[in-house]
């Protein structure tokens, strides 16, 4: 309503007078869009000229690099002291606002980001990538030289293995963004590593590759050669433009389907060796301690997973009335292959129906699923359960807990439950024993 009054002030006095008289009924009208025939007054948004229709807009290139509508200013990444060391936001993680996204491509500015020593800012002119170790012909490349190699583009999900780490022992966060937002999906362009390696003469004893970043944390990880020669890429573009600094500008590793920590940012060096390195982020961290007292190391692919994005705590059903036909929509992904399908339960996992996939269904990428539901205004325990072409079915909380316990931190893919109350409120709960 306030904005409408602003319009009036900048236009004509007579209209402002009119609104003073009709404001009270219009307030009701504006909130009653579902039943036009019962309106007390006509919608002022229709009956009168708007501010934007009666004034000159911005010059065409006011923002040479475009920015979102100012009205979308709340659609941002969010973090929490819990996602950091002692509240320090240099070694922390910021989450994608999944509730506000559509389709399978995450805008670059909203892509989740995790840093171990702050966001590095690399001068591309001083950037060098060295590939050496057990190769006949080690090389060093500038950024321009790397870009001379034939490029490949793939839509790929990146998920931090800590996604949902706060939820192992019970529900903790009250929003989709904080429960599942350590992931995003983008179109990545770069060079398939095999294309470069074909000319370097990889020695037969080369079994492992060390990927090392150049930021203050010198993030490094070891990958097995089989994956390296399969689909690993060295990428420099994200959704058509250069990588963002937060994503490792100018170059990061991309190991499709594997935990994002392996996709080393600010990539500096690839070394081939005959033994694994036991780098700090594959020993002291990023190993999943199970209830046996032993920990899973070299935990590569992210598991089959899914979450309902509409409704969700941020996008509830409070505006629905009984009988409305509404779409239940969600995201599903697997690091092992391609999503085959998703089932939906309304009763906390006792009974299930098949949802449908929609849009692009690509390997190791987000896939959308959809189910048309007639809203009944009754309480629900809403769940989604994905399965993929690698024979994986998403586990319940109990099924996952029974095997790995609750102290593993990493690779949690248990079914998410949204509790929907009879008035359409949505909250994060877990079905567990």
């Amino acid at each position: 309503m306030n904005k409408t009054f602003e319009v009036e002030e900048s236009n004509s006095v007579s209209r402002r007078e009119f609104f003073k008289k009709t404001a009270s009924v219009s307030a009701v009208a504006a909130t009653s869009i579902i039943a036009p025939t019962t309106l007390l007054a006509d919608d002022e948004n229709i009956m009168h000229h708007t501010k934007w229709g009666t004034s000159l807009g911005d010059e065409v290139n006011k923002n040479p690099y475009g920015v979102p509508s100012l009205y979308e200013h709340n659609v941002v990444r969010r973090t929490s002291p819990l996602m950091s060391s002692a509240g320090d936001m240099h070694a922390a993680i910021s989450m994608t606002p999944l509730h506000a996204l559509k389709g399978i491509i995450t805008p670059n500015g909203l892509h989740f980001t995790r840093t171990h020593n702050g966001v590095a800012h690399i001068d591309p002119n001083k950037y060098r990538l060295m590939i050496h170790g057990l190769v006949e012909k080690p090389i060093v490349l500038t950024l321009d030289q790397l870009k001379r190699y034939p490029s490949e583009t793939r839509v790929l999900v990146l998920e931090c293995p800590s996604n949902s780490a706060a939820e192992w022992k019970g529900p903790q966060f009250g929003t989709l963004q904080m429960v599942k937002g350590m992931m995003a999906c983008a179109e990545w362009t770069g060079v398939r590593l095999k294309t470069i390696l074909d000319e370097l003469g990889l020695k037969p004893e080369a079994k492992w590759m060390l990927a090392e970043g150049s930021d203050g944390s010198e993030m490094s990880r070891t990958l097995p050669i089989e994956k390296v020669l399969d689909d690993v890429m060295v990428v420099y573009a994200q959704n058509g433009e250069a990588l963002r600094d937060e994503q490792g500008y100018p170059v990061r590793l991309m190991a499709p389907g594997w935990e994002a920590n392996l996709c080393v940012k600010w990539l500096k060096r690839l070394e081939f060796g005959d033994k694994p390195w036991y780098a700090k982020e594959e020993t002291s961290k990023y190993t999943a301690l199970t209830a046996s007292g032993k920990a899973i190391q070299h935990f590569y692919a992210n598991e089959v997973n899914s979450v309902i994005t509409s409704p969700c705590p941020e996008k509830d059903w409070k505006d629905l009335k009984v009988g409305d036909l509404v779409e239940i929509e969600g995201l599903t992904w697997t690091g092992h292959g391609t999503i085959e399908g998703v089932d939906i339960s309304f009763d906390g996992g006792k009974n299930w129906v098949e949802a449908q996939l929609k849009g692009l269904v690509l390997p190791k990428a987000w896939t959308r699923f959809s189910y048309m539901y007639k809203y009944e205004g009754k309480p629900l325990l809403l769940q989604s359960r994905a399965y993929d072409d690698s024979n994986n079915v998403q586990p319940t909380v109990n099924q996952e807990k029974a095997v790995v316990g609750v102290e593993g931190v990493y690779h949690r893919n248990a079914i998410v439950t949204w509790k929907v109350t009879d008035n359409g409120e949505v909250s994060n709960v877990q079905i567990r024993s």
Partner: protein
Amino acid sequence: MFKLDRKLVTIAGVALVGVTLALSTTTAKTATADVAGSLYKSKPGAIDGGVTYPRENGTYTAYKYNEQSTKGVSFGRTPTANEIKAWDIDALPDGSGLPEGEGSVELGDELYEAQCAVCHGDFGAGGQGYPQLTGGNKDKDENGVIITLKNQRVYGSTDAPKRTIGTYWPVATTLFTYIRDAMPYAHPKSLSNDEVYAITAYLLAQDGIVEDDDEYVLNKEKLSKVVLPNRNGFYPNIDGPNAQEDIRAFFADRAKNLGAGTRCMTDCKDPGGQDGKTEPFVVKIKYEMSDVVPPYAYAKDLPPKKDDGLQHPGKEGYESNCAVCHKTDAMGAPAVGDKHAWEATLKQGIDKVYHNTINGKGGMPPKGGTSLSDDKVKEIVDYMIEASK
């Protein structure tokens, strides 16, 4: 694991398209051979002169890639020996790659107190919110598993498993490279190799892994021989010639090793608990973590205006109402920024300028055609004069 969709593509030519789409459907019966070729099934006669693609069996799309050979593509140059030496400073668990140098527990103590304790606590005991480095019970069970690592904060156990160097880390060389490459946190790579050996010695001494004696000096040879208590606490095996096959076998049995669901569709049971019998129930959030940054907000409204006191109050009104004519002199109006034009205008006195603006002059309608208040118009005039000085 090790899923080779690239190989699938290589073997089946352009069949990635077909594979992707066939697998994408919710039921296998809808897979079609039509999409395995180079083009999708299409119908001519679209309104734009092109074709339309049918939406059938829930599919609609494609990926392709260049199949020409990339053999011979080669850019870049060979790095010099010095360049490789400068960057290839990693160390393996057997100590290869560790630099020369040495450092005592005593020096390590001094350095730790000065540079590390502020985050990691006295003696590495934690408490400042950053990782605890030392301490934790290292007692093992009959199978050689560190008992406290089995702690689960459900089933009645309230102690979290402690993941310190002594209880959890598999190899000690990692400690050296971690400190050298990434510590101190705010000034990584500022310590000499000798200092890193000293701090490494100090931390290992706190857990009795090396001699807890000020005189103890750690170097490459000694660090190579250190065996941490939890060396065998990890799986699958990643060492030796069978490593990759061991990993493959581990991830092949994901249901057993990682947990898996079942596609039960009706009347499904989901027992849990330690006995595998406990009925599930709904667990709500007990203490919601809601201190997020920035705070939760979902309104589609304008962000609060940042009033830094720097923007002239008339600037915005000028830009939205007056700039179209006054930005240049193309319309015959004095252009904002044109010092001489405004000096000439102001010769008639500011009150006259206000008057003309409010009442109109020549081609300019009263108030520039706006319905702004007189005061607002004057503010804009002030801005235009200010911006033209």
